[in-house]
Each structure stands twice: as C-alpha cells, then as structure tokens.
C-alpha cells in the first residue's frame, strides 16, 4: 500500500447519480418579490405565509453571504437559480401513492427507499421530497390514530395553520443568517411533524430529499414540534443526480422540544459531492437548530458524506433548566470536498448538559473543518459540556482543522474538551493485508472503528446504511 494507492482509495464513484426523466414545471431563474408571490400562489398559501416570506426576503436583501467559513467556492449568482421545480403530474399534490408518477416511485426504489405502504418496511413512515415538492407521505393514518401529524410542509400550512404559525421561525428567525433568510423567502416544501403531549411516536419518521431538475435550488423547511413529554425519532436522507454545475441546497430545520420532550434527529447526507476534480456537486448551506424547554432533550446525529461544500451547524438552545443537547457527527471529505461543520450549544437554563462528539475524515484533497461554539450564559449555573473532536486523515494532501469556541459567563460551569488527529498509516494497512484483509477493507474497518461512537447513536437500519455509504465513498481502484 503506497501513498499513491491511499490517494486512489480516497477517490470514489457516486452511486445515486442518475437523473430521472420526468416532466417538471420550473419557474424561470431569478429572484424577486414576484417570484416569491408566484411560489406562494402556486402553493395556494394564505396571506400570512406570503407576508412572512416577503419579510424574510427584505431582510435577505440587506444581508451578506457569510465569508467566515473555511470553504472556498466561486460566487453564487442568486439570479441564475430557479427557485421552484415541481414534477408536473403532482401539481395538485398526490392524495395517495397511486397518483404519484410511477417514474418517481421508481426513483425512490432505486435509492432503496420504500414508499409503498404495502411493503410495511420496518415501521418507518416516509415523506419524500422530490425537487421542491413533497410527493408522498406514508403511514399517515396509523400516525393519526395516536395524534401524530406527519405531512408535507405545504399541507401543514393549509391543514394546521395555527400550529405552523405558532412555531415557525421561533427557533430560526427569518433574519437569522443569510441562507436561513433566503430559505424563509423561497422555501417550497419540506416536512412537518407534530407529536402531542405525552405521546411516544410509534415509529421512526423519515424524510428523503432528492434534487432532480437541473439549475434548481432546493430550499426545504422542516419543523418538528414535540409537546410536553412527547418523543420522536426522525431520520433524514438526501441524494442528487450527478451534474456538472453546482446546485444550491439551503434548508432550514427547526425543532421545538417542550418540557420533558425528546427529539432525536438523524441525518445521512449523501448529496452529489462533485467529481474527482471538484466539478459539480451540491452546495449544502443548512441551518438546523432546536430549542429545549425544561428537562427536554434534543439529539442531533449526522453522517455527512456528500456535497461539494457543507456549511452546517445543527445546534441546541438549552433554554429550560436541566435540558440536554447532544451532537454526534461524522463528516467525510474526499476528492475536492470541503466541509465546515459543527454545532452550537447555547446553555441558558440551570444544570443544562451538552455533549459534542465530532469525527472528521479527510481523504484525497478533502478539507474538513470542525467549528463549534459552547456558550454558558450567566444564569446557566451547574452547566456541563463535554466535547470531543477527532480527525482522521487518509493520505497527505487533505486537511483537518478545528475551531472550538468557548464562551463561559458562569463560573460554576464544567467544561471538558478532548481532541485528536490521527492518520491511517501505510504500516497499518500492510498489517491488515498481511493477515489476509484487502487494503480497501482495511480502510473501511479503520474508518468504521473511528466512527463507532457516532454510529451507535443512529437507528439500526441507518447505521448499516451509513457504514456502507462510508465504504462506497472511500472506494476507489486499489491497485
């Protein structure tokens, strides 16, 4: 195993890169109040929703794209992007899977996502968002029995306007940051989930996002509300076709965990990362944040293997006393991928607790940055944080960077921070080979070992998927 072979190993083929040939309706590129009005009217939204979008748009016009992340990309022309693409056949949103274009179902099947309820797969309810439109939500009736609402965001705006109005923007305000403001102005769909007081959601909820149309951005909006004592586990998966041009994905996810509630949010992100030379790929600029009230707990787990650029900091505002925030992350950058990711743990309440476990893997020319903020507010007496940031390097052309920011305003806080950087050595690979294990499998085993602590936080099926994904992502021609 030479250094060259390590580099080979770090290069990879993307396996979800097919394009589905369906008739889609796309709004011409460009952004203006008129485009926003058009999106809103196409979705048949009430006036308040349009006003909310327009206020976000006006904020956005005043804002600047952030320059502080440790990522580099050519300037994005926001007027060259189309802000709405919908598969034509589902103009009126499908009422059941029978109304969904069979080609779409085929697409999801290719991705290994079962949408047909008759397959009754492992009791996971799925919402699938294709380009900008939610195409199907499964298991709706079963969830309804226990009072859980799980539907597309558009549907929620129509069917549950009071809930949406009550919580939308309470965690990520329209003016929060450049990309969140953009999303608030133009978001087209996403998922909505509401678990009423005391209910334990009887199955995993899952959303699969896929960008298909060319030259479109995807701006989905997810809002999850767990009322007092409720519990929900939510999974999110993402893929996109291989295209030479870059595509923008700017999502916003808001989580609200009321007193004693628990939300577990897991992501396996496999957007198209671009080719070996860094051509194409998704720009993934995402704002994810949750707010915990008293004794509530929010746990983010993410496995980020795709995207040309990842800019993402799933965060927790630990508002209520004794609330708990967790962040478990694996971020892999290979070829020319860049990731600047991490979390913010904002301790406001007393005896709040947060845990951060970040595992960055860099291969090829990949650049991996961990950026984290732990803030202990004045009133957060007895707050505790444990942070662990580990980096694993494959080859010597990649990079790992860590920027842990700590801001402590209460002297009773207890903070623990651990960090490590290691490299997969040629001697390690040879040791595996000498025992009969191929170099590729050796890298897999070492990488999986490195990620173990994060994988164990994922629901079972997802852990297996994530492990395979890392394998594929690192797969190359081992000579």
């Amino acid at each position, binding site marked *: 195993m030479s250094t060259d072979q390590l580099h080979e190993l770090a290069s990879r083929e993307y396996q979800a890169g097919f394009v589905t040939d369906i008739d889609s309706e796309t709004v011409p590129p460009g952004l203006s109040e008129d485009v926003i009005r058009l999106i809103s009217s196409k979705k048949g939204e009430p006036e308040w929703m349009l006003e909310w979008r327009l206020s976000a748009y006006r904020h956005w016009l005043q804002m600047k794209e952030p320059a502080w992340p440790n990522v580099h990309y050519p300037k994005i022309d926001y007027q060259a992007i189309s802000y709405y693409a919908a598969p034509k056949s589902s103009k009126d949103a499908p009422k059941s899977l029978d109304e969904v274009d069979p080609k779409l179902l085929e697409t999801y099947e290719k991705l290994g996502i079962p949408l047909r309820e008759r397959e009754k797969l492992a009791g996971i309810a799925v919402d699938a968002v294709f380009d900008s439109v939610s195409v199907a939500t499964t298991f709706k009736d079963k969830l309804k029995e226990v009072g859980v609402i799980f539907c597309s965001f558009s549907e929620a705006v129509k069917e549950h306007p009071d809930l949406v109005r009550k919580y939308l923007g309470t965690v990520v305000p329209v003016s929060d940051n450049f990309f969140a403001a953009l999303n608030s102005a133009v978001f087209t769909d996403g998922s909505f989930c509401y678990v009423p007081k005391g209910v334990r959601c009887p199955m995993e909820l899952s959303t699969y996002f896929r960008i298909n149309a060319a030259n479109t951005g995807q701006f989905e909006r997810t809002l999850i509300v767990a009322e007092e004592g409720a519990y929900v586990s939510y999974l999110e998966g993402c893929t996109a076709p291989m295209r030479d041009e870059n595509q923008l994905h700017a999502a916003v996810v808001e989580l609200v965990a009321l007193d004693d509630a628990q939300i577990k949010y897991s992501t396996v992100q496999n957007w198209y990362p671009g080719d070996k030379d860094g051509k194409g790929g998704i720009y993934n600029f995402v704002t994810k944040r949750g707010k915990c009230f008293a004794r509530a707990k929010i746990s983010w787990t993410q496995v980020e293997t795709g995207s040309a650029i990842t800019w993402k900091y799933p965060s927790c505002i630990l508002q209520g006393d004794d609330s708990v925030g967790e962040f478990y992350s694996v971020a892999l950058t290979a070829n020319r991928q860049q990731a600047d990711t991490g979390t913010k743990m904002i301790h406001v309440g007393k005896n709040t607790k947060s845990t951060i476990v970040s595992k960055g893997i860099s291969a090829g020319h990949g650049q991996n940055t961990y950026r984290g903020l732990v803030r202990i507010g004045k009133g957060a007496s007895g707050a505790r944080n444990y942070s662990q940031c580990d980096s694993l390097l494959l080859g010597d052309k990649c990079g790992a960077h860590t920027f842990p920011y700590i801001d402590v305003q209460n002297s009773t806080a207890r903070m623990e921070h651990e960090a490590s950087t290691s490299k997969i050595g040629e001697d390690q690979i040879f040791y595996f080979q*000498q*025992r*009969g294990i191929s170099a590729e499998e050796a890298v897999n085993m070492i990488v999986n070992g490195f990620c173990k602590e994060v994988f164990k936080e994922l629901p079972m099926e997802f852990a297996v998927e994530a492990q395979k994904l890392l394998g594929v992502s690192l797969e190359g021609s081992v000579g």
Partner: protein
Amino acid sequence: MTMLEVRDLHANVQGREILKGLTLTVNPGEVHAIMGPNGSGKSTLAHVLAGRPGYEVTQGQVIYQGRDLLTLSPEERAREGVFLAFQYPIEVPGVSNVYFLKAAANAIRKHRGLPELDAMDFLALCKEKAALVELPEELTRRAVNEGFSGGEKKRNEIFQMAVLDPALAVLDETDSGLDIDALRIVASGVNKLRSPQRAMILVTHYQRLLDYIVPDFVHVLADGRIVTSGGKELAQELEAKGYAWLEKEPAPAASR
C-alpha cells in the same frame, strides 16, 4: 513439495541493496532459525516474503509451494498461508482484536473455499487459541495492539498465528521483550503449532529461545547473505563466540 525456496534473492530498500544473494530452502515440518547481527537484513527478508511495499526485489526468485510468491499481493500471500509475526506489531485504534481477527480468518477461509465462521464459532476458536499462549481474554476485546505492553504484543502475534493456521510462519524476534515466564509460555504455544504440514522460520538473537523451540536448522545471515548454516549446535557456538569469527570463514555451501 518444497514449502519455500529462496534463490539468489537481491532486494533494495530505499535504493540501497540490503539482501545480496540470499538462498534458503525450507521443507514442510521444518523449523529454521535465522540469526545474525543487527542490520544484516533478517527483517528485510521477512518483509520481502510478506510483500511489504517499498521492498524491491531486483534479482532472484522465491517459490512458495510451487508458485512464484513474488507475483502475489500481500493479502494473497497471507490467504495462501504465509504468516509474519511482526518484530514491531502495529497498533490499530478503534478496531477490536477479535473483529480484526475474524475478518482475517474469514478472508482466508473464503479464499480456501470454506464457509465463513459465525460469531459463536469464531469466539470458541479464539478462546481455545488464546489459552494456547495464555493471552488474557480482555486483550482480545481491546483495540488491536493499542496500549499493549511489548510482551503482550508479541503474545498477540502468536495468538493470531494460532487462529489463522498458516502453512509458513515467519516469526521475527518474537522472543525479544518477553519475560522469562512469557518466553516459556509462548515457546510452548509455538511448539504446539509445529506440525508435519507447517514450516517455521524463527528470527532470533538468542540461543535461549532455541532451548525451548529446538530448530532443525540454524542459519547465520550477515550482510544480506546466509554465511553459514548448521544444526542446533551452531546456535550454541554463536552464543559462545559471537559473529566476528564468521567473517573469516569461507562462503558456506548453503549460500552458494
């Protein structure tokens, strides 16, 4: 069939010739000891046999069980039954010893057309083999060699050998770093692994190991060649006289 035939082997490391015409024949069932001064090329020979990248063969041949060993990849050699107990075993954080060994055992079994072992069968096998070298079970669950003491690492190598059941085992200074009791235990484990089908090459600096594992042949490697060969008495002679006297001897038959 001959187990291993090394003919006039020349090998470079970093452009420098380390092996300078080494010849050695090993038959099934035999134990060969290789001794020699520091830096003479003993580990280099072991690595060349295992196919370590960076060790470039410039001349000569290595025939293993009738096949040209040098054309096989390192993992193919391992699957064909070549095992190297490393002089400096490698640490692999995050990967447990049993998990590592199970992947290895199953890769080898697959190559031999045998069904893979399931977790239960494999754990039973591990238990049995760990007992052979008295390796504490706790160590089998820890990450491969991570934080192992020097002696524990060496013991772990022999444990792996026992599990993987190789045809040709090259033990590179497995005795160094072992305390007196451990040496006895490891040696007795190795002795139990001696069989008419298996051949072993022991690289060592000390006669003491050879009191426990009695070799069929002893070779002296100096400056990249086998300079003299003999029976087990040769080791005693070396212990008494050192290596200096050999330089005055005529080239022995074994190295041609």
